[in-house]
């Protein structure tokens, strides 16, 4: 009889604050099904860069075989948090969540880098807190500096990772709105025509500060479809960037504030967001607050009311409101936090198919991460570049003239990609394309 058959495992040896749940980690049966879908594994074929490998590192730490060192943290941070692994894991291990838990455990143990403490904890806590930084960015653009700075950074990016990060940061920034949306959007935007629904709007920080046009289009599309849009003032960041970078404490704090705020609006049919990352994060509040007996049920309640805008539109789009023909060929890039984290795949396509004249072309590997991944493209520009290049090549391969997606990170990243690679493709949020079709129908009727 082999000794191996009888080998007992002792169970958890080491634990600490924020350590991933040992029993949940044990759920990984090491079948390897997650390997072929993981972009970082695909790029490196290294087990350390795979979902199974990352879980094995965490388990080794809790088994007392390895210390939770910076080099283990490095492999955890190389994860895109794209959740492709979660969608295929046969026993349903919450791999992405466990990896984030591992990052948090490391942050508690070793602290977090200075830039994260300043950029995320000080400025990225709400759209309003971002204002001082954004004022400088707007000034930078108004002075025409990008034309000077961009070529310099391009020349320097190979020299040092910091320049590469700056190059990305600069390249990602679109023409900024003169004023963020949260400062202009009324608390209640009435429905056009008969009010059919009362909808809460979770306005993401990036959407308000950088992509205000998109969210404005979102509000217009909602109101055209009988939704009264309620945007509660005082929203804070959803907490995704903080959760992503190991600061669970702040992520929980932000979550509680949003939960409390929206709890005051009990008569909302649903809460929508046009940022897949925000909607995904809010749907994950229950996991984030699972040990908080008071907030866990409230988190569940908020998560149940949360919808990505595409989900909601697929449900309520009103046939009576005319959509003009939009003659374009469209391909759809699925944001990880929509397709993988929220499992929302059909609705955006169903909505696109409603637009007359539009030809939809399938994008190969449409759920593969574009490399944006929160702030991954800034922290890991080299890997992000590789994923972006692949994405842009596949977009170009479809021959589409427009690429549609549903997340600010993807929008900015792909915009930068098509510009850098000189591909003549428009990059649009789903609601922008809809808004265009509605607006054209309205103006042709007015004529």
């Amino acid at each position, binding site marked *: *009889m*082999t000794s*191996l*058959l*009888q*080998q*007992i*495992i*002792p*169970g958890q040896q080491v634990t600490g604050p924020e350590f991933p749940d040992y*029993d949940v980690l*044990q*759920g990984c*049966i*090491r*079948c*390897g*099904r997650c*390997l*072929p879908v993981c972009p970082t594994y695909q790029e490196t*074929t*290294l*087990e*350390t860069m*795979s979902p*199974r*490998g990352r879980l*094995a*590192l965490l388990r*080794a730490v809790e088994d007392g*075989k*390895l210390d939770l*060192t910076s*080099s*283990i943290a490095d*492999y955890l941070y190389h994860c895109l948090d794209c959740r492709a692994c979660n969608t*295929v894991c*046969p*026993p*349903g291990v919450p791999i992405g969540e466990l990896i984030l838990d591992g990052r948090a455990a490391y942050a508690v143990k070793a602290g977090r880098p200075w830039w994260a403490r300043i950029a995320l904890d000080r400025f990225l806590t709400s759209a309003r807190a971002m204002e001082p930084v954004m004022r400088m960015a707007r000034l930078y653009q108004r002075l025409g500096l990008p034309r000077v700075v961009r070529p310099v950074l391009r020349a320097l990016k190979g020299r040092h990772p910091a320049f590469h990060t700056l190059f990305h940061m600069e390249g990602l920034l679109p023409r900024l709105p003169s004023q963020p949306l949260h400062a202009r959007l009324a608390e209640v935007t009435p429905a056009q025509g008969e009010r059919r629904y009362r909808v809460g709007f979770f306005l993401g920080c990036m959407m308000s500060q950088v992509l205000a046009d998109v969210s404005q289009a979102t509000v217009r599309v909602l109101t055209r479809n009988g939704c009264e849009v309620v945007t509660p003032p005082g929203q804070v960041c959803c907490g995704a960037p903080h959760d992503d970078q190991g600061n669970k404490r702040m992520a929980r704090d932000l979550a509680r504030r949003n939960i409390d705020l929206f709890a005051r609006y009990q008569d909302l049919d649903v809460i929508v967001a046009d940022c897949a990352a925000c909607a995904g994060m809010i749907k994950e509040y229950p996991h984030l607050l699972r040990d908080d007996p008071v907030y866990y049920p409230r988190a569940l309640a908020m998560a149940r009311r949360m919808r990505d805008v595409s989900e909601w539109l697929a449900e309520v789009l009103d046939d009576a409101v005319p959509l003009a023909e939009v003659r374009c060929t469209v391909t759809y890039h699925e944001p990880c936090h929509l397709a993988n984290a929220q499992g929302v795949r059909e609705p955006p396509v169903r909505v696109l198919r409603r637009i007359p004249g539009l030809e939809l072309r399938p994008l190969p590997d449409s759920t593969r991460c574009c490399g944006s991944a929160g702030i991954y493209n800034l922290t890991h520009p080299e890997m992000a570049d590789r994923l972006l290049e692949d994405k842009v090549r596949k977009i170009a391969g479809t021959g589409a003239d427009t690429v549609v997606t549903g997340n600010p990170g993807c929008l900015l990243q792909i915009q930068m990609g098509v510009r850098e690679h000189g591909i003549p493709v428009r990059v649009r949020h789903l609601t922008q394309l809809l808004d265009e079709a509605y607006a054209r129908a309205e103006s042709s009727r007015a004529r």
Partner: protein
Amino acid sequence: MAIPSHVLRELRDALGPERVLTRPEELIVYSYDGTWAEGQPDVVVNPTTTEQVAAVLRIANRERIPVVPRGAGTGLAGASVPQGGIVLNLARMNRIREISPEDMVAVVEPGVVNQTLQDELRPYGLIYPPDPASLYMSTIGGNVATNAGGPRCLKYGVTKDYVLGLEVVLPGGDVLRTGGRQIKNVTGYNLTQLFVGSEGTLGVITEITLRLLPAPAARATAMAAYARLEDAAHTVNAILSAGILPLTTELMDQACIQAVERKLQIGLPVEAEALMLIAVDGEPEAVEPQIHRVADICRRMGADPVEVATTPEEEEKLWLARRSVSPALALIKPNRLTEDIAVPRSKIPEMIRRIQAIAREYDVLIPTFGHIGDGNVHPDIMCDRRDPDEMRRVALAAQAVFEATVELGGTLSGEHGIGLLKKEFLPGALGPLAIEKMLGIKKVFDPHGIMNPGKVFPEA
């Protein structure tokens, strides 16, 4: 055993420093496969060319360092789990070198993932038939080294039936080429087949020439529920006697049916002793009447209800139950020992009855599913590895299953191999003469015993 620093330096010179991994966190992720077996390597190397593999084997042979070839680490026998030495990670040798529609062959490197090859073949209207359930992740090299089987193998055979030629690096670094590109070949001993199923104990496979087939145009499936297990087994014979060679015949026992139903709640017949899925493929005009004949035979043999699916969507629904067995079982207990026995087809009902008796005797849960048409079944002994008493009973149950298998004229492994987990049972299954001859062959290829030592053979 630590690797001497001059050896590490030599490996780095041969492969490039970034392809030689020695940090503890880089080693621990190569300490496992798809089982619970674990063992540490001293170094992991990631070659990308045959020359680099040869360099590694030259150094290892001279220094007498064990070498464990590794594909995707999805094996279910512990065969790629190291116990010190070098892990040779072949995942990065993953180019498809050639697809030849004229010769109907593909030439691939060992790290090519099975599904990747299938995807590349689709535009040519060709298939590579062996399709283990792990096809999304396992490598062709691993498939060859374990002679992997799949659900289609009742009709199309297993990996060995599709390997025409190999390039193998032997200990010492010599590069051996075996076989060729043709289906027929009796020029000398059949060395190609010697490496199929050798579990990395003879040499490192660096290139594989595979036979391809035209893709069948259509497929259909029938699902049949049986009140009595024996009737399911008899149905398979009745179908074959009626002149129909099904693509696959998959069986789930009652424990599996109940586990899946608990997870999915799709209205499976939980009272049934067995659920069988039968698929046929071929020309669309032939497939449709054939599957209805299959369904009739099932009914005649006592199945009730019987469902038939002829469109991909309907088929998908029927196969959902079978595909959910593994995840459903994961909900019952945290760990399991997946066995892989094969018995003559006529002995299947008796084997399953015996497994059920063993489960009762040792008070463990053993759901059984498998490829009934080819006699290969997977009793999964469910367990919790933190429970010493249960693990003792699991080990006894496993031994009892193996003994029953051998008694019924069966074999320890149909498709997963022996590896670490079953090597103790080899003498009982093969006898001393066969083992002596096998070890003699091993000596010819691997005189110093560096290739995957401690695997397959109890004393090696």
